[in-house]
């Protein structure tokens, strides 16, 4: 089955710093999604990005499907960016999401 790997597993930033999170996937997919799980456990869909680049405020994401990776950029990080960032790909007829293990981000004031 499809494997999804994320790096780094943990990241600590000072407020205002920039960061790049990476997601590698094992098979050709066209449906990668990025999620943020806040410290209270809520999962928020950040991007549906099968290919190309999208931006939403201080966040942007790029997927290069032919090379099987996606990047999530966080610029000018804020303490509210803390939490776990997951990438996931949909597979099968039921479109179940296959998840990476996440990158745990802590932004210190």
């Amino acid at each position, binding site marked *: 089955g499809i494997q*999804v790997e994320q790096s780094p597993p943990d990241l600590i930033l000072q407020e205002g710093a920039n960061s790049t999170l990476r997601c590698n996937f094992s098979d050709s997919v066209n*449906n990668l*999604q990025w*999620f943020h799980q806040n410290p209270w*456990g*809520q*999962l*928020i*869909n950040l991007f*549906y990005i*099968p290919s190309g680049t999208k931006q939403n405020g201080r966040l942007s994401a790029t997927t290069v499907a032919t090379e099987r990776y996606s990047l999530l950029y966080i610029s000018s990080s804020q303490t509210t960016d803390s939490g776990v960032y*997951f990438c*996931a790909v*949909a597979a099968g007829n*039921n*479109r*179940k*999401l*296959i*998840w*990476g*293990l*996440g990158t745990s981000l802590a932004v210190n004031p």
Partner: protein
Amino acid sequence: NAGVTQTPKFRILKIGQSMTLQCTQDMNHNYMYWYRQDPGMGLKLIYYSVGAGITDKGEVPNGYNVSRSTTEDFPLRLELAAPSQTSVYFCASREGGRETQYFGPGTRLLVL
């Protein structure tokens, strides 16, 4: 729209007890999913439904049952709770033809 709602938010069960986790969505989505998230892990699919009256197993269905009598509701039933079912349970839904899944706030379950 309230989106996807789940109740309860937190529950403690004794081994062998049963309970139902409720999930409701008001977006008229056909597809609904139940996932569980164990500490430090991503989510794993328990059951899913492609519409009212149609359900199917995911990766980790043992110990759970579901029903889908309406488009809005997708309850998850735990029979004979076991400590291995201690987890956070998320319900999600999506519109047919679209990939984005929308998640509820989760139910934290502790089985002692």
